[in-house]
């Protein structure tokens, strides 16, 4: 316990006199992490009612999930929408980031501001605006509609990640390649892209998650055979709390964690 009387910072506060601060920090960390994890053991419960910890374990809610055509269909839709959104928004964001990085100046600032508006505009407004447009474009309840709407929400995120990587990248390397005779596209693909690939991978992962986790726009524009997982979950939550939702929540937590772990492993340059 000698540790307690040691100075904790340059100002000679001891660790002992700051214990309350550490306790508060620990409580906040617990508040952030623990509540979400409650759903994991619950998805393995044998009971119809919510118990924690469960008295008996079983896989019945996983069976009920795998036996439900509606949930499986929604899972397929969500994965398809996520994958297609990634394929649309990552290249578009990459192109835009490259263009803006070369362009600079006032116009670049304005275009950047327009491209990030989808995450500033209240999402409910995006939802009803897109719905209003889709009714006329005949895109309601279509996979393409979901993908286009999710892409505009994913582009700002992907753009920010790639733009900040390009900012610290020395573009003259590409100029050297071009002066040595490489075509511009080839110079980009061989010189620039490999050096910003971590940002591009991160942008792709975040695009997928943006779509996969999105609720509000999906509530308005997805439905029927193309309901997303989150839309079905949201509607189920308003009616009753079926433990099947704990199962789906667990699956979603696993998907996000795996993707983020992957992004941490492959999406970050190794520090020396």
């Amino acid at each position, binding site marked *: 316990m000698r540790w307690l009387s040691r100075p904790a*910072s*340059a*100002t000679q506060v001891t660790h002992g006199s700051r214990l309350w*601060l550490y306790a*508060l*920090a620990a409580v*906040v960390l617990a*508040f*952030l992490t623990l*509540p*979400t994890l*409650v*759903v994991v053991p619950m998805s393995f419960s044998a009971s119809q009612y*919510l118990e*924690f910890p469960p008295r008996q374990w079983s896989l019945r809610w996983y069976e009920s999930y795998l036996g439900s055509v509606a949930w499986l269909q929604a899972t397929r839709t969500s994965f398809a929408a996520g994958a297609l959104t990634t394929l*649309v928004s990552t290249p*578009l*964001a990459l*192109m835009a980031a*490259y*263009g803006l990085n*070369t*362009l600079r100046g006032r116009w670049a600032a304005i*275009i950047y501001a*327009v*491209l990030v*508006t989808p*995450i*500033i*505009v*209240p*999402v*409910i*407004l*995006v939802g*009803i*605006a897109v*719905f*209003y*447009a889709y009714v006329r474009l005949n895109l309601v309840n279509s996979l393409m509609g979901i993908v286009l709407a999710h*892409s*505009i929400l994913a*582009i700002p995120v992907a*753009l920010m990640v790639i733009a*900040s990587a390009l900012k610290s990248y020395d573009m003259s390397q590409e100029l050297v390649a071009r002066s040595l005779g490489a075509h511009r596209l080839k110079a980009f693909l061989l010189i620039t892209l490999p050096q910003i690939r971590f940002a591009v991978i991160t942008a792709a992962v975040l695009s997928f998650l*943006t779509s*996969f*986790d999105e609720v509000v726009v999906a509530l*308005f524009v997805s439905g029927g055979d193309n309901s997303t997982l989150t839309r079905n979950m*949201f509607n189920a*939550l*308003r009616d009753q*709390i079926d433990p099947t*939702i704990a199962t789906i*929540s667990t699956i*979603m*937590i696993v998907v*996000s*964690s795996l993707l*983020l772990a992957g992004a941490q492993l492959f999406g970050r340059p190794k520090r020396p």
Partner: protein
Amino acid sequence: MRAHSKDPTLSAPNAAGLALDARRERWIMLGLTAPALSLVTIIMIAPIVWLFSLSLLADDGTFSFEHYRRLLEQPSYRRNFIVTFEISLLTTAIAIALGYPLAYVLAQLPRRAASLCLIAVLLPFWTSLLVRTYAWLVLLQRQGLINKWGIAHGWWSEPLALVHNFSGTLIGTVHIMLPFLILPVYGTMKSIDGSLMNAAANLGASPARAFWSVYFPLSLPGLMAGALIVFILSLGFYVTPAVLGGGKVSMVSNRIANDIEIFFNWGAASALGVVLLTLTLIVVYAAARLLGLSRIAGAGHAP
């Protein structure tokens, strides 16, 4: 540069060619942004403008401010706005009270321990917000875990109404928003030069004095950015109030959804949407003037 312009190889036609190249380059770069720009314009901006025009039409299709007048006159709309501001302000205040101390401790931890704890901040940040909201429903409902524990331990005898009300909504919203505050504050704190605190101490400042007059002002930009992001996101929050509010906490977003889903009242919903967007843009504009837009835009990801 002057020597350059007198360079015989850079004669007038050559300069014209270079200028042409520069202009072509600009157009190519603008062209690269065109696909993303047109997607955002067609899918979102144009429909919002369309909604805006819709909000200016009365039920019989003539131009009028009727929908906006109703927003001012009907007390139920006023309640929506009051609840929205209450939730947003309280969420921001609580997020600061909880998030700032955590960021402060994290910023002083050794690197390995800090990155471990940061995962605990990032994990909820990237977990579906619907899943997190569901978890709170499980914890807080009448037959939920907290009530069961409380009653089993004899802390209270009747199930407390923890959810489907204002407090339940507030708890859930704070939980969702906290990482948006912690991350920018932590980032700013990491960039504070530790020797400044050393200097303050050497000059005789007490620990509290050194914190308040040296450290806190330096961490203020991050705190402001985080608080503004939390406030903006809370203003337009829909999912958590809809689930944890149980229909009793109707923020502006919830009211918009109701107007559409139940009453098919596009005019009223559009007018509300325009007001909500305007309020949000005012806050964003004020923030941009205060802090610079890039800092705000770069600090978070919307739920």
